[in-house]
C-alpha cells in the first residue's frame, strides 16, 4: 500500500507516464482504438471521426486559451483557413492528402501569427474582440474571394487517396483521424514538459512575472498563436479531406464558441480534457437525438416536445457541469482515479 507518489530521480519525475499503471491504461486505450472500428457500425465510426477531429481542434485551442491564457474567438476562422487551403491545394493543384494537409497547417499557422499580433498590446476580453475580428475578416474573405474559394458555393475536392486506397469511407478515414489525434495529443503533452510550454504557462499565470524571469512574452505569445493555429489548421484540413466538400457555414462564430465550450467543459489547460470535452459535446446531442427517436414510437407526445426541450437539456447539462465541476471533465476523471488509487481505504 503506497501512501503517495515519490520519485528519486528528476528523470522519473519528468516522465510522461510516470507509473506502470499509466502505461497499462494507455495500452488498453490504444488497443480499444484499434479494435473499435472493426466492431462499430458506420454511425459510430462517423461519431468517432467527428470526435477525433474535434479533439485535435480542441487541443489547438487549449494550447492558446487553456495554457497560454490568450482568449480566442477565432478558432472557426483558423479551421476555415486550414480547410480551404487543403481544399484548394487538392482541387486546383491535385496535391495528395500528405501534402495538402501539412501545407494547410503552415498557412494557417502564418494566418494565426498575423491575427496574434494584437496580443502584444491586448489582453483578456480585448484580445477576444481582436480574434473575433479575425473570425469576421476570414469569413468575409472566403465568401467574397470567389475566384479562389468558390465564394458562397461549396468547394468540392476529390476524395483523398493514401497508399492506393481511397479514403472515402468512415472506416478508412478513422485511421487517419485517430492517429492524427493521438500524435497531436502526444505533441501537446510533450510541449508542456519543455521550456516553450513552461513559458506559455508562465505567461498565462502572470505575464509581467514571466517577463521578469526572462520569458520573451511577445515572442512566446506569437509562438502560441502559431502552434495553436497550426493544429486548428490540421483539424480543418482533416475535416475537408473527410467531408470532401467545404462550405464556410461550417466555420462560423458558432464553431468558435463551440470549441470554447468544449475546452471549458473538458477542462482548461488539460490534454485529456480536450478529448473528454470533444466526446461529451459530440455524444450528448447524439444521445438526445437517439432518445427522441426511441420515443417516436413509444411516446410520440413526448417525442414531439423533445425538439423544443432538447436545447434546454443541453444548456442545463453544461451549466450543471460548470457549477458542480468548474475544472471540467478532466478534473472529474482525476477524482475518479484518485478515488480508486486509495480504494477501499479513502479518507
Amino acid at each position: 500500500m503506497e501512501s503517495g507518489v515519490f520519485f528519486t530521480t528528476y528523470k522519473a519525475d519528468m516522465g510522461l507516464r510516470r507509473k506502470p499503471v499509466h502505461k497499462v491504461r494507455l495500452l488498453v486505450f490504444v488497443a480499444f482504438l484499434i479494435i473499435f472500428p472493426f466492431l462499430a457500425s458506420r454511425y459510430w465510426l462517423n461519431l468517432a471521426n467527428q470526435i477525433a477531429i474535434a479533439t485535435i481542434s480542441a487541443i489547438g485551442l487549449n494550447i492558446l486559451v487553456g495554457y497560454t491564457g490568450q482568449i480566442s474567438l477565432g478558432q472557426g476562422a483558423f479551421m476555415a483557413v486550414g480547410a480551404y487551403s487543403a481544399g484548394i491545394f487538392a482541387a486546383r493543384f491535385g496535391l495528395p492528402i500528405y501534402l495538402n494537409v501539412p501545407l494547410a497547417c503552415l498557412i494557417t499557422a502564418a494566418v494565426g501569427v498575423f491575427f496574434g499580433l494584437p496580443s502584444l498590446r491586448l489582453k483578456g476580453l480585448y484580445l477576444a474582440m481582436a480574434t473575433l475580428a479575425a473570425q469576421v475578416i476570414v469569413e468575409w474573405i472566403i465568401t467574397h474571394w470567389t475566384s479562389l474559394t468558390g465564394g458562397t458555393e461549396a468547394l468540392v475536392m476529390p476524395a483523398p487517396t493514401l497508399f492506393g486506397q481511397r479514403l472515402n469511407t468512415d472506416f478508412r478515414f478513422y485511421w487517419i483521424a485517430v492517429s492524427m489525434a493521438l500524435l497531436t495529443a502526444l505533441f501537446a503533452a510533450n510541449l508542456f514538459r519543455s521550456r516553450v510550454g513552461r513559458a506559455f504557462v508562465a505567461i498565462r499565470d502572470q505575464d509581467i512575472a514571466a517577463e521578469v524571469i526572462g520569458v520573451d512574452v511577445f515572442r512566446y505569445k506569437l509562438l502560441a498563436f502559431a502552434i495553436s493555429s497550426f493544429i486548428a489548421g490540421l483539424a480543418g484540413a482533416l475535416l475537408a479531406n473527410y467531408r470532401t466538400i467545404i462550405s464556410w457555414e461550417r466555420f462560423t462564430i458558432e464553431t468558435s464558441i463551440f470549441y470554447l465550450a468544449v475546452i471549458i467543459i473538458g477542462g482548461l489547460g488539460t490534454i485529456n480534457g480536450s478529448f473528454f470535452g470533444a466526446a461529451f459535446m459530440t455524444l450528448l446531442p447524439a444521445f438526445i437525438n437517439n432518445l427522441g427517436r426511441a420515443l417516436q414510437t413509444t411516446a410520440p407526445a413526448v417525442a414531439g416536445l423533445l425538439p423544443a426541450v432538447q436545447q434546454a437539456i443541453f444548456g442545463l447539462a453544461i451549466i450543471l457541469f460548470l457549477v458542480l465541476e468548474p475544472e471540467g471533465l478532466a478534473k472529474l476523471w482525476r477524482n475518479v482515479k484518485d478515488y480508486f488509487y486509495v480504494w477501499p481505504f479513502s479518507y
Partner: protein
Amino acid sequence: MSRKLVIFALLVALLSLAACAGGGGGAGGAPIKVGAIFDLSGATADVGTPYAEGVQGFVKWVNSKGGIKGRQIELLFQDYKYEVPVAEQLYTQFVGEGAIAFMGWGTGDTEALRARIAEDKVPFMSASYSHVLGNPAEAPYNFLVGTSYTDQLIIIWKWILEDWKAKGGSGAPVVAYMHHPSPFGLSPWQQGGEEWAKANGIQATAYEMPRGATDYTAELTRIRDSGAKYVVFQTVSSPAALALKNAASLGMSNVTFICLNWCADELAVKLAGPAAEGLVGAMPFTPPTVDVPGMKDAAEFLKSQGTSLQDKGLHYIQGWATMAVMAEGIKRVLDSGKELNGENLKAALEGMSNYSTGGVTAPITFTPTDHRGSKAMKLFRVKNGQWEQLTDFLSAQ
C-alpha cells in the same frame, strides 16, 4: 467525492444508453426505408415544421392506402436543428439502418451531404433549390422538385421586363436584389441571375441584408435613392416582412416588392400585415388558398386528422409534394420489377417525364443530364391578406 462519482456514473449510463439506442438494424424486409432530417427546433424551424409535417403526412397517407405496391414506407427521421454535423450523424445513422433514399432540408446540409450521397448512391431531395444541385455532373444524386433559385430569379426578371413595358416604363428597369447573407441568399444571383439581368437590359444591384438586423431603413433608403421600381427578396419570411414594413414607413408605395419562394408564404403576410399588400410571390408550390386538384389528397387526409390544409399552409403541401415525387420514383422501380436500391431509383426518377402533381407544381421532368424537375412556376400576389394567382406557369427557358 461521492457526489462527483454519481455524476460520472450517470454520464457513463447516459452514454451507454445512447449506444443501445444507436445500434443499427439491417436492410431488407417489407418496409421501404427512407431517411429524413427536419428542422423542428433550429434557425428555420418556423417553416421547417410544416414542411416536416407534410413529408410525414404523405407517408402516413400512403401507408393508410396500403403503401406502395403493398410495401409500407418507413420514414426514419429526426430533428437536426439546422446543424450540419448533426445532419451528417443522422445521415450515416439512417443509411446504416437501410435507408435507400433521403429527404433533406436546408442549403447547409444538402451541400455538405452532396459528395457523400453520390458515394453511397442515395437519391436525395431537399428544400434547397440551389441551381448547382440540379446539375448531375456536379451533384449526381440530388433532385430538385421545386424550381431552382436561379430559374425563379430569371422568371422574375422576365416578368419585371413585361410589367415594366406594360406600365409604360422606358429604358432599363432599375431593380434591387435584397438577399440573405448566406449561400442561400447569393446562390440565384451568382449562379446566373446577375448575368441574365445584364444581358437582357435590367439594371440590377445586389444589397445584402445584414445578419440579425432589426431595421433595413438604411438599405431601403439607398434603394429608393437609386430609383429602383422593383425589389426582389431572396431571404426568409421574417426579414422580408421587416423590410416590407420599413419600406411602408419610408413611403415606397410606387415600388413593387417580389419574394422568391422562401419569403413568399403565409408567414410573411402575417408578419408584415398591411405592408404585404401587393407583394408578388414566386411560388413553385401552389399555396392552399388556390384550389388545384393535386391538393385533394392532402386536404382530405388533414380533414381526417381534425385539421385543415389552410391551417397547415404552403410549406405543408411543399413537403407533401416533394415526398410524393420521391414515392412515385419508388413506385416506378417496383413496377419495373427491379431491385429497389439507390441506383435503380435514380434511373427511375431520371425517366420521369411531365409527371403531373395535379397543379401543385409545374409537371416534373428529370433526365440523366438535368435534375431540375420543374423549370416553370406561377406568380402570386397578396390581395386582402391572401395569396391570389397573378400569372399562369411562366418558364425560365
